[in-house]
Structures are given as structure tokens and as C-alpha cells.
């Protein structure tokens, strides 16, 4: 039982990191309807800035700088690339983000080289032990951060005019422009925010229990895809629930691997996708996503 509790807790804590990454996908998707494949590289950028600066200026300023840096990179991507696209097909833009991702990742991995960079976070490898189970302080911080940020975005999307403008721009740029929405600013803002979020996610993705930021870190961002989708690509609540679900699924599949050998080993990575497909079969727009309109 305690193993189960431990795995559950571990899954939830891992899931909160995924939720943070997924939130980045959600923000861009809501504002531009683009699936952002470059999110992984934003993550790397944010982490890189934090990791290289913390020695000199201390952790919190470095984190702030990381957030700002990644936001800047995100904004630059929007300004230099996304904005120049003159078509309407969002899947084409998704491909563009793949190109951007290749560029950014190559540059950052070249800079990171073969190093493993540490974040200099204040939590270290401390764990909180409650009865039989223990949980890392970093993960508690991740959970709190994810919850706070996700709630904040939920409220912002729903209640501020920024949120309304964003959704309007995503749905029909032309009509939104007629409402006075500054299209450029909205999507620039979204990309910057997504960049900032990526930097926060990068922090939690690379602190204990993982050794640090290195070139393969961006691959881990892929795991947040099923999280974003099964929650619903345009839902902040979905990002949280999806992230947690993916985390728990992965943790359980790993923890009970030896009881599941008939499926082949190493299904920890596969299980989230299986859950995702199952959920999509029942709810094609994810758990909390906006359903497709069905009237003519």
C-alpha cells in the first residue's frame, strides 16, 4: 500500500511538471491555434539562461532572468517568424515551429555542449518524509507553482480582456482586428508568456531528482504532449489534470513494471499515450477541451 501511495505521490509530483509544460502548449494554442513544437527549445533556452547565471547573480534573479530570456526568445520567434506567415493553415504553422525548434535546439545544444548544468535551486535534494512515503521538496514547489500559475491563467483567460482578445484572435484574426484587437501584440504576448512558462517548467524539469540541464532535456518536453491533448488543448484546467494523469500513469506503469511484463518492459513511456487514446475515443476534444461545433 505504501508503495502505491509513494507511486501515486511521485506520479502527481511528476505530473505537475508536465502540467507546467502543457500549460505552455495551451497558451500558444489558445492564442494562435498553433501546436507549438518549438516549446521544447524555449524550455531549453529558459533553463540555459537560469543555469548560466545563477552562480553570478544568485538563484532567484537568475530564474527571473531565465523567464525574461525565454520570454524574449518566444517573442522573437513570434516577431521574426510566425508573424511573417501569410496563410491561414495552422498545421503549416506547426511545421514552421518544427523548423524553429531545430534551429533553436541546435544552437542551445551547441552552447550546452557536453555539460550538465545545474540550476542552483534552493531545494537541493531535500525530501519530505511523511510516514512511509517521501517526496522531494522540488516537487512540492513544482506542484504549488503549477497550481498557482494554472489558476492564474484560468482566471486571466476567462476574466480579462487579454483572454477575450486572445481567443478572438485565435478564432478569426480578421474579425478580431475589426474589434480593435492588436493581433501582433496578442500573439507576441502569448509567445512571450509561453516562453516565460517554459523557463519555469525547465527549472522544475531539471532540478532534483534529475541531474541538471543538458542537451537531451528538450526531449522530455515531448512527454507533455499527451498531457496537453488529453486535458484538451485549449483548456488550462485540462493542462493540470492532463499533466497529473500522465504523471500518475507513467509512475504506476514504471512502479508496477514487473507485474505488467506481458506487455513488454518499459511501458512507462507508452502508457500515457494509451490513456490518451482511450480518453480521446470517448471525448474527442479531450477532458476539458471545447467540443467541436456541430451545427450548420
Amino acid at each position, binding site marked *: 500500500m505504501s*508503495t502505491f501511495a*509513494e*507511486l501515486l505521490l*511521485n*506520479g502527481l509530483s*511528476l505530473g505537475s511538471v508536465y502540467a507546467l509544460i502543457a500549460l505552455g502548449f495551451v497558451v500558444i494554442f489558445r492564442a494562435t491555434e498553433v501546436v507549438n513544437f518549438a516549446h521544447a527549445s524555449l524550455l531549453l533556452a529558459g533553463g540555459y539562461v537560469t543555469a548560466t547565471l545563477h552562480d553570478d547573480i544568485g538563484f532567484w534573479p537568475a530564474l527571473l532572468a531565465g523567464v525574461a530570456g525565454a520570454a524574449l526568445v518566444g517573442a522573437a520567434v513570434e516577431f521574426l517568424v510566425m508573424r511573417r506567415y501569410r496563410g491561414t493553415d495552422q498545421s503549416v504553422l506547426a511545421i514552421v515551429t518544427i523548423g524553429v525548434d531545430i534551429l533553436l535546439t*541546435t544552437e542551445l*545544444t551547441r552552447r550546452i555542449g*557536453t*555539460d*550538465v548544468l*545545474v540550476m542552483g535551486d534552493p531545494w*537541493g*535534494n*531535500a*525530501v519530505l*518524509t511523511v510516514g512511509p512515503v*517521501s517526496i*522531494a521538496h522540488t516537487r512540492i514547489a513544482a506542484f504549488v507553482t503549477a497550481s498557482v500559475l494554472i489558476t492564474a491563467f484560468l482566471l486571466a483567460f476567462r476574466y480579462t480582456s487579454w483572454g477575450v482578445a486572445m481567443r478572438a484572435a485565435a478564432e478569426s484574426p480578421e474579425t478580431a482586428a475589426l474589434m480593435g484587437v492588436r493581433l501582433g501584440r496578442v500573439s507576441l504576448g502569448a509567445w512571450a508568456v509561453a516562453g516565460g512558462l517554459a523557463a519555469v517548467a525547465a527549472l522544475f*524539469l531539471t532540478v*532534483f*531528482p*534529475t*541531474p*541538471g540541464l*543538458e*542537451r*537531451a*532535456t528538450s*526531449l*522530455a518536453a*515531448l*512527454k507533455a504532449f499527451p498531457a496537453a491533448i488529453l486535458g484538451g488543448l485549449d483548456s488550462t484546467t485540462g493542462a493540470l489534470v492532463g499533466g497529473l494523469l500522465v504523471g500518475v500513469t*507513467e*509512475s504506476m506503469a*514504471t*512502479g*508496477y*513494471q*514487473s507485474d505488467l511484463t506481458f506487455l513488454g*518492459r*518499459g511501458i*512507462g*513511456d507508452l502508457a500515457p499515450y494509451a490513456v490518451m487514446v482511450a480518453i480521446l475515443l470517448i471525448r474527442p476534444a479531450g477532458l476539458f477541451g471545447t467540443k467541436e461545433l456541430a451545427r450548420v
Partner: protein
Amino acid sequence: SSKAKDDGGDKQSAGGVKTGEGISGKTISLGVLTDMSGVYATLGKSVTQAQQLYVKQTNAAGGVCGYKLALTVRDHGYDPQKAVSGYTELAPKVLGFTQFIGSPFVAAVKQRIDGQDKGLVLPQAWSATLLGSPYIRPIGSTYDIETINAIDFLMKEKGLKKGDSIGHVYFEGDYGENALTGSRYMAKQSGLKVVEQKIKPTDNDMTGQVVALKKAGVKAIVISAGPRQAASLVGVAAAVKFNVPVIGNNSAFAPQLLATAAAPALEANYYVANPSLPIGADTPKAKKLVADYKAAYPKDSLDNGVVAGWTAASAFGEALKKACVAKDLTREGVDKALLTIDAFDPGFGIPQNFTDPKSASSKESVILQPDKNAVGGMKVVREAEVSSVAQGYTPGA
């Protein structure tokens, strides 16, 4: 047409040395198929740089047999298509390959190597599946043997005993699964039980694995994964006070880890089995290599990839020298020459025996321990040794 077959592939040079593909004028071309932008970039970079260093030094010393060596490097980024293309491109131009990263890719062109090209390939992969070809020759103990030796170390010096369980965390793919073969064999021979945990290179957080292994009550853990996974595993285990020894294969450590928060735990509880002495070994050759490498690449860290690259390049060089003595620098000549080398020591403590293509060139492993103060971050805790189980083990059997 330009491709029309012209006979006379083999030429006789002035000195009476027979030459063939890969040699033009006074230059011997050697191929390097490496990964400097993909998942094995860390390894690829060190290996390649060490080999370039070797070539530079050899040429400075007059080359081999009066021929200069030249490396042609192709970076495939661990992409099968690029790797195969790289091979196709270089195969007609080079005498052999001093480096070929990625055993699946070596396997992909194995038919061509064995069937028609017949050039010597020294892959930087230690999977036993590559054994058996007279042309493809991994250097040093393969992962299965290394793992057997590693567990042997645990049993002899870390209190692991018959009836205990050990955990084995391993990568999907050639490396991990070959190591798993070793641990399974060892377990059978020594009455241990293996609790398997397969992971992927994208997994960076080993908490789930630690929980599972703790639940299974293992007394020690073998990890056949990357440095990050090792660091996470050891770090998490220490944090939850799960104090069992952890030992990894040679690829499961990088000196960079000693700069991370996991360093104390690694120094306390982590061991690495290695097919040779570490880069920081106390041999004259090692010391010279360290000095030269530092001079040539001041910004790069010293790791075992340097040793591996140097070893492979010098083994190839050795074969070339022997072939030159036999006045046959054709591919066959070099292959034959390698088969006569039975105790070549590139300077890292373990002699290599290339006479039998079916078995690894050595079965010895050195056990190392992370140490911040050592060059390359590792110190020796047990000298080169073959366990008795490894002695009796034949790969693939």
C-alpha cells in the same frame, strides 16, 4: 561511362607495398562515422577528437610506412539514414573505419562489410551482437562481460550474496539489453535474482524506478543507462535513504556529473565498470595523452571517450604497421594483420587480443569510483580483473 569497371584495384607502390582502396598517393584515408549532434554527441566528440589527435601525432612522427593518415569525418547525428549514407559515401574511399557509432547502424551495413567491402571497422559500441565478423571488431570487453564483472565486484566486495535480489535499470536498445544478458547470466550462475527496469533515454527521473526497486527489496543496483539516469538514480536512492551500492557500465558516467547536486551521493555509493583504466590512470601513456589532449582541446573535458577513441585509433595504427611490414596495405592485408595482434596495449592497462573474431578482445574490467579530485573524475578501486564467471561465458551462447 565513368563508372565502367576498370581493373587493377590493387596497385603496387614503389616500395613494393601492395595497396588498394583507400590509399591514394601517399595518404591512407580512414573513415569516421560519428555522432556529434545526436544522442551520443558526448561520446562522439571525445572519441573523434582523440582520434584526430592520434592522427596528428602519427603524421608528425612520419606516418605509417611513409604514408600519412587522413580522417574523413561524417556526423550522422544518430540518424540511421545518414549513417548508412555516410557509410555508402565513405566505403569506396577509405581503407577502413576507426570509428562507427551506433551498433544498429553497424548491423545495418554488416552485410556489405562482410560481403563485399571487407574494410576494417572498429565500432565504438560494445554490444556482443557485433562480434563474429572478422572485419567488425569492437575493442575491449563487451557490455555483457562488463556487467558480469561488475556484479562480481558487488559480490566480492559489497556484501551481495547468493539469494539476494539485484535491480537492473537498463536502456532499451543494444547497450542495455546486452548488459542485461550479462546480469541474467551472472544471476543464474551465482544464485541471484534480477529485478528488471527498462527505461528510455528520454527518462530523466528515476524516482519511479527507485520506488519499484525498493519495493522489490533489492540489495544492489546495476545501471546500464546514461550518466543522467545514473545520477538521478543514485541521487534519489540517497535522498530516500535507500542505501544500496549502485554500479554502472562504462557509459553510465560522465565527469560532468560531479558538478551536479548528485555528486556526494555518487562519490559515496556509485561504481563504474570499465574496459580499461580511466583517463586519469597512473600510466605514462595516459599521462601523456592527458597532457596532449588538454593542449589540443583546452576547453573540453577528459572522459573515457578519449580513451576509447585513442585506443581504437592506435589499434588501427598498429594493424597498419603490421600490414606494412607484411607489405600488404590492402584491406585484406590490414584485416589479416589485425588477426595477428594478440596483446596490444595502448597504454591503459589492459592488453587486447584480436586473434579471435568471435570473442571480445578482452574480458577484463576495471572498477572505478567517481572522485572529484581525480583527472577525468574517476579513481580505480579494483584493478583489471576477469571474474571466473566471465571467463566461462561465451557471448551469444
